[in-house]
């Protein structure tokens, strides 16, 4: 982190690496941002968790909480592992060894929960006929992509950090990740990383690009405001809201995100 490397200055970086670790992530992020803006404006009607509990609830009872709570832990772990530089944790008095022991243990528990949940969710989707028939194109992209990302991440951790000698991604992958967001991309940081980590990063980029066009958008609707809201909601019919007025512009007729246009 001490000598930020600008892409133009990275004489040693190959074109392929620039494409994979600079151009591709930025393209995915751009799609992520613009896609969300488009979907939010155009498709409020399609913005939903697409629940299938009506058709199957026995597996969902375990799979839903396992997957979601596991995912929350995994996301939290990624935020700590990727966004927080190792110098900060060391400054806070957490030794390298303590950090990695915690990360491996908590990460494994979270990862296994998430994978188990996701596996069960995929299974019920395939095995319950009404759910399978109700699976749309965006789901057919999302479920494999999500599974691939999660499995690659879990196998990278398992291979290198649980059963392997240990790989300090905080000095490589994390540096690349932060570089993308600080607008000082450092593709060199990740080019030396093990293949599983690289693949995991790439599928994650794809997942972010696909995000706004799938049911994953329901993540942004996590109803935290409910905790503070009065129970009964009254609304006047008479005055159209600004949002509703904008919505009459044609969201109802908007194509479903699974549909290409």
């Amino acid at each position, binding site marked *: 982190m001490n000598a930020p490397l600008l892409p133009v200055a990275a004489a040693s970086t190959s074109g392929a690496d620039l494409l994979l670790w600079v151009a591709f992530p930025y393209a995915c992020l751009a799609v992520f941002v613009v896609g969300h803006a488009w979907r939010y404006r155009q498709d409020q009607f399609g913005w939903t968790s697409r629940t299938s509990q009506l058709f199957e*609830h026995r597996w969902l009872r375990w799979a839903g909480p396992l997957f979601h709570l596991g995912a929350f832990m995994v996301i939290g772990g990624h935020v700590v592992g990727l966004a927080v530089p190792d110098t900060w944790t060391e400054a806070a008095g957490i030794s390298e060894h303590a950090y990695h022991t915690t990360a491996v243990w908590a990460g494994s528990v979270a990862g296994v929960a998430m994978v188990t949940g996701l596996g069960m969710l995929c299974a019920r989707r395939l095995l319950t006929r009404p759910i399978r028939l109700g699976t749309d194109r965006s789901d057919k992209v999302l479920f494999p992509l999500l599974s691939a990302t999660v499995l690659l991440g879990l196998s990278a951790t398992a291979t290198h950090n649980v059963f392997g000698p240990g790989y300090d991604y905080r000095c490589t992958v994390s540096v690349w990740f932060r570089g993308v967001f600080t607008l000082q991309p450092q593709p060199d940081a990740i080019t030396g990383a093990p293949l599983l980590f690289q693949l995991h990063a790439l599928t994650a980029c794809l997942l972010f690009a696909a995000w706004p066009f799938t049911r994953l958008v329901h993540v942004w609707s996590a109803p935290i405001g*409910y905790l503070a809201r009065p129970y*009964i*909601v009254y609304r*006047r*019919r008479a*005055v159209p809201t600004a949002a509703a007025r904008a919505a009459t512009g044609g969201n109802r*007729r908007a194509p479903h995100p699974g549909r290409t246009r």
Partner: protein
Amino acid sequence: MASGETTVGPRGEAAVGRVMAQVAMVMNLDKCIGCHTCSVTCKQTWTNRTGVEYAWFNNVETKPGVGYPRRYEDQEHWKGGWMLDRRGRLVLRSGGRVKRLLSLFSNPDLPSIEDYYEPVTYDYDNLVSAPAGPDFPVAQPRSVLTGRPTPITWGANWEDGLGGAGEHAGADPNLSGAWAEKVRFEFEQTFLFHLPRLCEHCLNPACVSACPSGAMYKRVEDGIVLVDQDRCRGWRMCVTACPYKKVYVNHATGKAEKCTFCFPRIEAGQPTVCSETCVGRLRYLGLLLYDADRVGEAAATPDEKDLLDAQRGVFLDPHDPDVIAAARDSGIPEDWLEAARRSPVYDLVMRYKVALPLHPEYRTLPMVWYVPPLSPVLDAVDAAGGNQDDPDHVFAAVTRLRIPLEYLAELFTAGDTDVVGGVLMKLTALRSFMRERTLGEDGDESVLKAVGLTTREAEDLHRLLAVAKYADRYVVPAAHKEDAAALTAVENRCPVESSGGAEDPGGGRVMLGIPTLRRKKTGDRP
């Protein structure tokens, strides 16, 4: 919230409350013949689409019976409605806010499709395309959900006319007390009546309170409870919270849908489709003015049996000058106040007190009320060897009806048989008095006096209940013209106008009431 919307708590501190108007309904159960015209016309209007094949915004149940969805009245199981916690505070039975958010990943109290029924269509094509053979071709039932042949084993009114009652009706959650042993399901000993049900458009709606997204709301102007289809995120907590199970998940769009009280018709001053097409002419529509600030307090009344009076206490007398002044302050237009004074619902609920709410103990303060059924009372008098003209004999017969008072009390008064008995006696007295009048006699006014009616009131009530002219049954003031632009912009969009939701953006298509086989639809997809 965005500008132009008001989100206000139900419990204000003001001495004079906010007056709100609600278009409410009363059904006279004596007249319901169980023809299901209301259900069918409602379905053709609102739910003949992919995703809501199983949903009936209006359904007619045979009582006693388990209902639709099965045993929906068992709130110990389904956790619908409100209850008082140990400290006497009003809480949703399905739990507090934090518990609800934790249930987002899997709702433990959501009915599954088996609790409703598996919707089917028939393979009509086979009737014309089957190859020539020795047997007559038949149209096999096929599941709309799987496209596969499926036996039909349940439906929205499987128990129609007590069909299968010997096997199923004992599971009716209302048959819980010791008195239930009196109920027999043998021919010539049993009883039945029909109970048409739709969304109650409650004053204290549990569904609205449970919606994590704030997508459900009660309209200030007419009290209609709606789901904002653009805001619903499919968290499905409303389905659990509604004790009447009148909110449904559209499995194609992933959004909640419910009875809209036909608001486009109501706004135009027309009755709902179920009312308009009711063959028995048993439905009444009219305004009730209520004090929005007293709703929470009334719903938290400690004794369940006091809830009926508590709810009546929330309603305001549209003839009272103070109420009129307060209503004007709250912005209720003059023609609405005039309509409120002519409201048949106000007469049945407040003036004559012959209408009762369905399951007041759910504490949602429902706004579709029922005149309890009386049918065989005069036969019961004869059967007991009594004189139909002797009020003592007639009133005594009310307690010996085949429909046990206890059963009606479970449905309409949280178990208070005195209230139901009082209503039935009033109806009996009215019937006895008007029968004598019709037969050319004077009519025994002592019968009326015993139930607190004057001759004039009896004639009015008879006109309302028995003659039941269209203009007397439906007093619906149109929404205001000055709001017309706003109506077109927001609410006039039918919340379900695109037929297949996510799958079918072709909003212009008019769907027939025959569900498309999913099997074929899937095959058609590229």
